[in-house]
């Protein structure tokens, strides 16, 4: 494993983190707070949308984001050969 490859691994990791954190921000702070009053004009079932994002939706999205990151990183670890062996690293 040479340094050049490791640098690329890290760069891709940073890119994943930035993309996922942007979604994290948009959903919680965007939909749940800043845009909540506007989104509240839309009603789905009994929920006003801004209220739903603030008290339900953002939490579901948080869970999904973590599992997407886990999936992406496990694949990336294998691609760059930095995955841990069974005994641990």
């Amino acid at each position, binding site marked *: *494993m040479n340094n050049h490859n*490791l640098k690329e*691994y*890290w760069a891709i*990791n940073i890119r994943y*983190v930035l993309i*996922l*954190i942007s979604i*994290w921000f948009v959903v*919680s*702070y965007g939909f*749940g*707070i*800043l845009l*909540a*009053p506007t989104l*509240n004009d839309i009603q*789905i*079932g*009994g*929920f*006003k949308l801004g*209220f*739903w994002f*603030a*008290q*339900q939706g*953002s*939490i*579901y999205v*948080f*869970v999904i*984001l*973590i*599992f997407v*990151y*886990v999936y992406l*990183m*496990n694949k990336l*670890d294998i691609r760059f050969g*930095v*995955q*841990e*062996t069974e005994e*641990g*690293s």
Partner: protein
Amino acid sequence: MSVQLWTYIFVGITFSLYIGIAIWSKASSTSEFYVAKGTVNPLTNGMATAADWMSAASFLSMAGLISFMGYDGAVYLMGWTGGYVLLALTLAPYLRKFGKFTVPDFIGDRYYSQIARTVAVICALIVSFTYVAGQMRGVGLVFSKFLEVDIFWGVIIGMAIVFMYAVLGGMKGITYTQVAQYCVLIFAFMVPAFFISAQLTGNPIPQLGFGSKLVDGSDMYLLDKLDQLHTELGFAAYTSGTKSMQDIFFITVALMVGTAGLPHVIVRFFTVPKVKDARISVGYALIFIAILYTTAPAIAVFSRTNLITTVNEQPYDQMPEWFTTWEETALLNWVDKNGDGRITYAPGQAIVGSPEINRTNGEIVRGEYGEVTLLNPLTSTENELYVDRDIMVLANPEIAGLPNWVAALVAAGGLAAALSTAAGLLLVISTSVSHDLIKKQFNPDISDKKELLFARIAAGFAVLVAGYFGINPPGFVAEVVAIAFGLAAASFFPAIILGIFYKKMNREGAIAGMIVGLLFTLAYIGFFKLLYPEYNTPEYWWFGISPEGVGTFGMLINLIVSLAVGMIFPDPPEEVQEMVESIRYPRA
């Protein structure tokens, strides 16, 4: 069977279980005591983290708080879950790769400085002690409300239980008791929620129920009905709230970042075998937490609706039995200001301060309608009802007319939530003393056996201190929770993030950042919460930011100071930069 008998049965069974685990999981080395030898299965760790994290406040108080805050309650819901995304993406995997025992360990090694380590230890101790006092208080409250045991003995019993498994088993004992405690608390939280959701909306899943139509024949959505009730009574609509948008924003950031910087949460991710496990373990933890956190806002809506429709403009003498029972505990009280014998519920406080029951010779003095009378002066609002926030979860089963065993279950769940968090915090306190102070600073040559002994002594001592604060709570326990999160956000979080993502960050910058962030946050909270509470209103706050949200400011100041001071001083030594490089890759 009575609620009390059921409570004795549930508490008896769960406590025997915790003690059993304590005996089975005795730790024999410091590695076992501090991080369970790093052999915890990621799913197990996720569940333990959930119990570690969800405290008496999450279990007993949060749904009640939200039901009075409406939309604004989102600060807790998002703030106390969103931090896990930060943990999974930016902290847990790297700290696991670093592979030591504590957060001060990382700060001390990464910033090649005993001063940095000491600052981190001080932060860890302040955060953990403020937090743990509240937990012991929660234990005492449950005992006194449900078992009619004196708060003093309630705390003593709680201390004895925690002492057994935390001091004997260390992290190993704590992990497996936390798994058991998670099962108890989530079952206790969900059972009443299913029942009440089905009663009100016909849909037993609370997450869907509170967006459904009522089954009372009105063909109205529950939330629309609640908004309507609120507006009629003069409250802001439930789904819009009253806090300013920037305050909501700042509080949410402070709670999220604070969560990600709490040492007792971070240390849980040192206990899994691999980096890969640390990542997924955070995901499992958040699923387990989300089950409770997506149910709590539903419970808030159900209990708020139930409360308003049961009491408002109804004659006092037609109140159900639970109303009169909770009156005697001074958690729910009525003062007939307009003398019409009916309960008027309106915005504002009904009385000055918390209720003090009027007694002569120990007998409660009753009013014209048989109500419990109070000594408190009345306020000038129309509101005649005092409702303690905690009652919304505690009394929920009774308000909904559920069987006695459900109410008893809530008591056992509250105890599980308080004990599991207390144990996690006590472990942080004990490792900070035995490992970060004694082993790393005063006596590096200490044998593992001796260090383990010190860890046990420190844990025992911390239990005693926590118990003392549980029995004699400082008047500001509720206030200082803001301090715990603000401090974690303003001290640890930037130092760890910079330590991982910015290789050139040096010790001078990090230390300056932590100290300035810490002092600024302490000063702001101390000023408004302790010294001058009369100024604690939006017109005096900086940029409209309440003390709860100031940790966000502290974090930004920490970042700026760290980077600015860091530029003046030389880069960290080569071997430190290499260490930073190495924690970025799971292997190699």
